[in-house]
């Protein structure tokens, strides 16, 4: 009789649901960002005020084509109004709808995963590094191995490596919750109900900027994750995450 030793079915199901929704959100989020590829800080940010960061990612990155500014007030540094006289690239119609649809999938998957992760002991036993594992020397060692691409394929008996555990925890317990909350802060209706979100992140535009950098971090994680899968045997890893591993391995793979 074969013994199941790899990822549990619920881990495999949540992994792929999360993977598809995260990729859908990265694509649609990028499409939305292209509409106004400038980042700001605070509550206000628009083409008439200085940007915190200007990302050169679409044809909307340009300053010409605005009418002569008209001041709202008599004062010298009065805020102004100006008309935009050019067409912009705007993919927000499908981008936003897909973003929220994928967000729902991720919310339901996340609830399912968190519940089972706690109940089954998966978080405690496999994911969260124990105090005895966590030492500067151990982290340094693991970084050195990764830098030399000497990555050991995770064996069913060894479980995840230290950096692996830390990066999974960072994504699951910090980046995704941060993306969730900063995303909600961009909704006028939700911040009407929970204005504390605006205070937490320092305003709508700050939340948008933080949302962008958390996306960058997730994107880097996804790249590193795929690289690790390739380095440790893509076929075996993909099989393990889809069909599951049925039999205990008798020897180390690499």
């Amino acid at each position: 009789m074969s013994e199941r030793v790899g990822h549990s079915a619920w881990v495999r199901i949540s992994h792929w649901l999360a993977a598809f929704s995260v990729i859908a959100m990265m694509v649609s989020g990028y499409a939305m960002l292209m509409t106004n590829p400038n980042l700001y800080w605070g509550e206000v940010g628009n083409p008439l005020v200085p940007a915190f960061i200007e990302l050169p990612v679409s044809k909307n990155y340009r300053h010409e084509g605005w009418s002569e500014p008209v001041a709202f007030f008599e004062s010298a540094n009065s805020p102004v109004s100006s008309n935009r006289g050019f067409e912009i690239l705007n993919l927000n119609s499908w981008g936003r709808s897909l973003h929220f649809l994928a967000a729902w999938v991720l919310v339901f998957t996340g609830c399912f995963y968190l519940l089972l992760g706690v109940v089954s002991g998966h978080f405690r036993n496999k994911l969260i590094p124990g105090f005895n594992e966590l030492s500067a020397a151990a982290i340094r060692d693991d970084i050195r191995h990764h830098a030399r691409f000497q990555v050991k394929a995770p064996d069913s008996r060894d479980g995840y490596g230290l950096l692996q555990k830390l990066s999974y925890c960072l994504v699951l317990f910090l980046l995704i919750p941060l993306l969730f909350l900063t995303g909600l802060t961009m909704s006028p209706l939700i911040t009407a109900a929970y204005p504390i979100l605006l205070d937490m992140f320092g305003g709508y535009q700050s939340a948008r900027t933080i949302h962008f950098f958390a996306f960058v971090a997730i994107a880097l994680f996804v790249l590193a994750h795929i690289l690790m899968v390739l380095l440790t045997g893509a076929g075996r890893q993909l099989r393990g995450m889809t069909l599951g591993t049925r039999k205990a391995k008798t020897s180390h793979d690499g």
Partner: protein
Amino acid sequence: MMDKKLLTRRQALTAGLAAASALVLPGCAEDLPPTYGHLLRMGDNFTYRAQRLLLPSHTMAREYARSEISSMPAIGMTDPGDSSNRLFVEEFGSEYARLRHGGFTDWQLSIEGSVARPGVYSLADLQRLPHKTQITRHTCEEGWTAIAEWNGALLKDLLEGAGVLPTARYVNYSSYDAWDDSIDMWDALHPQTFLAYGMNGRELPVPHGAPVRLRVATQMGYKSMKFLRRIVVTDNFVDPGRTGLIQNGWSWSAGI
């Protein structure tokens, strides 16, 4: 032992499905915006249902200090009467040019449909409604924001004056740049949903929707229609077709 466990699991599953359907099924019964079988529109409707079910009602969007008023771009149509504008629509554009020439004294907003007293309101009529001011953030779907002071009347006061019938569920509105849109009664009766005829203490500038624009503080900017022309209260959702959001691929409910 096994049977007992299966039963509990099934019960749990049934309870879960019942809870999920509470979110979806009322939507089917209550005449939501049409999806035309489009998965993204189904997602929009799901979000809209969830918002109305889960969020506390009539919470207020944040209001700001006068010192926080910011610059604000005017995008899309900036003068419906300008025939050289690429967005010019002859049908209403020339009428708008005439009204603007007369300082909007001939401008009238009609209110029709499921109301006890349909009628037309001039700018002076609107200005006789209780005057309100709010300093709120305009949140454009493009990702930019601006804070402005809006001066005007509550849509709620206009609707109550016209006597909205108890069957009414949507407030539809049309503009001089030939767009049609609608909001539900929740948004329409919200104490921050304005018919704005003033901006930052002066009359509303043409690029920002003169003489009167809608301001829905709890919604994305594109629901705040400029250059208002007509209001129709309906009992059911109306898809205006090519002059509305859905058939142009945009979410009607807009927010998240």
